[in-house]
């Protein structure tokens, strides 16, 4: 699900200023929610009917939010998420009916079972693509629904009935009036929204969204995508479990079709879509449709359209997705942004700016303020290091050894025994015609692909068995031929997201700001990545690679699409990074002239093997190299000025 346009995400801050930023920014909406809930409670206090409507609202607000966590933030549309609702409600009711354990323990059991189940399923289904994943979870839910009808313990197809509570009891999660359950429900909705808010702004939330936007890039930034997404589903499952137990206790009855069936799935999906997936408030706002549907159904009872609520739900899904897929929350944000005149800082943004250290602050908040201070400082420092003649900081040790790497895809032998090595601090060019296997080699070194044979060593130790994110942690980073930024995160967030966990949010943010300055980012760092110009996007990718303290950075055609002055700038930046951080670079480039001034050595690859390896001038005068590039006839006549 593509995240809505307005979803600029804030990086986490220190706890104190986090509370402060909550007070400044999010609290308005929370106060509105609390006010609405109080209104609902007052309104329903003496009406059994409105109380029951309210109870259903609360249940589905919870379930929709749970769906949003895995579907919207995690990017995995778990159509069968209802299974956690069903499993937990059955576990609680069965536990009560058969005296296995009191309901309070049932809450623990339900949450634990669902959380564990979600984590395991997430790992098992990790390689399954999005649409098939949706179907697989749907089938699982149907399967569980059928499974329940087999066993007498679970009441077969008639369901299970829990006895009505005689008095209030914590151990039995029992309250004497339906209205009391509604109060609990309202509190649960509030807590769930707070939890989602925390999640969205946390390191985990950022990593999950990065994994959603671009799994490969996230892995290469050092994020354990499989694990974080599984955690997101665990959180979602636990919220669903709470919803299931809440439902079981006020309804006192569970049966297969409402616990696992398509009708319940519909009631989960519609509020989430209507409100907007991938936002904190979407499911809560969208949940208004539940009481609306119920009330309209009741009004038209007997006369007019039967199943009016189904008609409305269907119409909403279609209309929202055809017209504005981001849902109500996203539409509201877009509207607000359009109405606000440009270049005016929102008042809550001013508050945050004022609270931070004055002058030259690196803290970036709000969407309209360009960053000053550190970024321009770093930029002017970088300019001072204009050194065409600075000697590369090589230490003579070998950093990267590629030994006889072989890789084939089906019948195509992409790499046929590639061998070369790169010394620490060196800048090596990797050249060759199209299809030579350069990007494949990069993928094998980065761990995105596993080589079929051969070995890769980093500082003498073999890393062939390591995954992409492990190699990222060991110091290998890369940029991509076609940009792979996280499109919905800002430039700063793109650079920082891989280091949030390791450094903590403030340090990560500071380093990201510094690195963006070092690479010469022109646009404000708070610009959303997909709005950046091409050269700025390449700079952000470079910064993202550098910020992980990479020892080896592989640049895959980083100059493609840039004009002459941008190429020169990029060359200067790379050279400075090499000198200042002793970073080793392996650079793939098509236009030789772009990188020849930069590199001390060139490796020519042709058809999956190394053809030549050595001093650029010498290599590029060789006939076999010229033949590979220009063909036999030209080889004898063309000079070696790249």
């Amino acid at each position: 699900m593509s995240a809505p346009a307005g979803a600029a995400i804030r990086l986490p801050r220190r706890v104190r200023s986090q509370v402060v930023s909550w007070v400044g920014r999010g609290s308005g909406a929370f106060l509105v929610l609390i006010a609405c809930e109080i209104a609902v409670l007052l309104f329903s206090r003496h009406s059994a009917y409105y109380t029951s409507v309210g109870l259903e609202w609360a249940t589905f607000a919870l379930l929709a939010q749970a769906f949003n966590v895995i579907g919207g933030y995690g990017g995995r549309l778990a159509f069968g998420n209802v299974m956690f609702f069903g499993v937990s409600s059955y576990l609680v009711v069965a536990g009560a009916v058969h005296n296995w354990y009191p309901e309070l323990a049932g809450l623990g059991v339900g949450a634990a079972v669902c959380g564990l189940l979600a984590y395991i399923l997430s790992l098992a289904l990790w390689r399954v693509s999005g649409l098939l994943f949706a179907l697989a979870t749907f089938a699982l839910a149907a399967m569980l629904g059928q499974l329940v009808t087999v066993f007498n313990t679970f009441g077969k197809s008639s369901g299970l009935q829990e006895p009505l509570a005689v008095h209030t009891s914590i151990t039995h999660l029992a309250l004497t009036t339906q209205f009391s359950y509604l109060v609990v429900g309202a509190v649960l909705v509030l807590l769930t929204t707070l939890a989602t808010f925390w999640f969205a702004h946390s390191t985990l939330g950022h990593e999950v969204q990065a994994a959603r936007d671009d799994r490969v890039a996230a892995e290469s930034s050092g994020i354990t995508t499989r694990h974080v997404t599984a955690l997101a589903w665990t959180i979602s499952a636990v919220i669903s479990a709470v919803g299931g137990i809440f439902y079981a206790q006020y309804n006192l009855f569970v049966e297969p079709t409402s616990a696992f069936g398509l009708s319940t799935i519909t009631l989960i999906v519609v509020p989430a879509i209507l409100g907007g997936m991938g936002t904190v408030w979407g499911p809560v706002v969208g949940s208004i449709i539940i009481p609306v549907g119920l009330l309209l159904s009741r009004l038209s009872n007997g006369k007019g359209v039967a199943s009016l609520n189904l008609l409305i739900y269907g119409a909403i899904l279609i209309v929202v997705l055809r017209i504005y897929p981001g849902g109500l929350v996203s539409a509201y944000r877009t509207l607000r942004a359009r109405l606000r005149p440009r270049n005016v800082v929102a008042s809550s943004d001013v508050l945050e700016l004022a609270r931070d250290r004055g002058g030259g602050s690196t803290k970036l908040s709000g969407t309209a303020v360009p960053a000053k201070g550190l970024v321009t400082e770093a930029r002017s420092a970088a300019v001072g290091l204009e050194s065409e003649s600075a000697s590369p900081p090589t230490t003579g040790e070998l950093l990267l050894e590629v030994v006889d790497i072989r890789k084939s895809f089906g019948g195509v032998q992409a790499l046929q025994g590639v061998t070369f090595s790169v010394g620490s601090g060196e800048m090596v060019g990797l050249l060759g015609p199209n299809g030579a296997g350069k990007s494949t080699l990069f993928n094998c070194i980065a761990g995105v692909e596993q080589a079929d044979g051969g070995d890769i060593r980093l500082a003498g130790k073999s890393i062939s068995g390591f995954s992409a994110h492990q190699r990222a942690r060991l110091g290998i980073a890369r940029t991509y031929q076609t940009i792979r930024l996280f499109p919905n995160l800002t430039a700063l967030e793109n650079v920082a997201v891989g280091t949030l966990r390791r450094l903590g949010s403030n340090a990560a943010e500071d380093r990201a700001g510094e690195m963006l300055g070092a690479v010469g980012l022109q646009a404000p760092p708070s610009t959303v990545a997909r709005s950046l110009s091409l050269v700025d996007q390449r700079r952000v990718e470079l910064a993202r690679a550098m910020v992980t303290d990479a020892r080896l950075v592989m640049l895959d055609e980083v100059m493609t699409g840039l004009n002459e002055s941008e190429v020169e700038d990029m060359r200067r930046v790379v050279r400075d990074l090499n000198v200042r951080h002793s970073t080793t670079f392996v650079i793939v480039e098509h236009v030789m002239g772009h990188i020849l001034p930069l590199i001390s050595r060139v490796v020519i690859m042709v058809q999956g093997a190394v053809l030549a390896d050595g001093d650029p001038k010498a290599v590029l005068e060789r006939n076999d190299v010229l033949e590979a590039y220009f063909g036999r006839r030209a080889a004898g006549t063309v000079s070696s000025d790249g």
Partner: protein
Amino acid sequence: MHLLISSLVAGILVGAVYGLFSVGLSLSFGVLRLVNFAHGDLVMGGMYGAAALIAATSVSIYVAIPVIALAAVPFGLFLYVAFFRGTGTRDDYDQLIISLGLALLLETAAVNLFGNNAKALNPLSIRSVTLGWLHLAQPQIVAFGVAVALTVIIDVVLRSTPVGRAVRAVVADREVALLMGVNERRVFAGAFVVSVALAGIAGVVLYGYLPVTPATGSDFILIAFMVVVLGGIGDIRGTFAAGLLVGLVENLTATYINTSIQDVAVYAMFVLAIVFRPSGLLGKGVA
């Protein structure tokens, strides 16, 4: 022994029809990347269409087949234009959810037009055919025959005609096919209309021996999804074979273990297939 054989036969007969409507879904998934949640309801629509036609004109069910097939063309075209045109380029979940909305609309229409009670052909009018000790309902045999015939036709069209080649190109690699000049609108609309027609026809032949209610759609959709995935998306023969497999597993489990378990076995097979062989258990589809 007799039990085994009659189970196998029953499984194959119904499996063929599963294969038929799943072939339609496979086309829409393969060509438009559309996971059509409304497909089961389209089968249901075929059943209701046959019911209405027979109630109004007292024709035999075999006449209903071409009538529904013809009616499916403008209806399918309308559905495509109203709901799915233009969404097919996005590789995300929007289409899936729009189709869920459509399924809800169709179900509402069914409830309002036909009520909640089951509609069925007069069971006394169903003739049976006897082969030795095997008793089969004639409509089941007809259903099988129609399913096989249509699947063969579709398979031949896809393999040997220019239109079929265009469709297969789009299934294999949509972007390149479009760059090569395949007319996107026609292929998409055409594939969708065919999938609607196949669903409708399957509904008609099923109505020969099954009752229909507004909930029938949701019963079929899961089966259709599973058959498509098991058979390999876009692989017609694989999908048909998977339909047979599902029919067999369903019947054998019902006969030898438990009727309630029959669906569980099929769902479990499906989930395992997705995890271990997402490109299809039996065919070579595009995952």
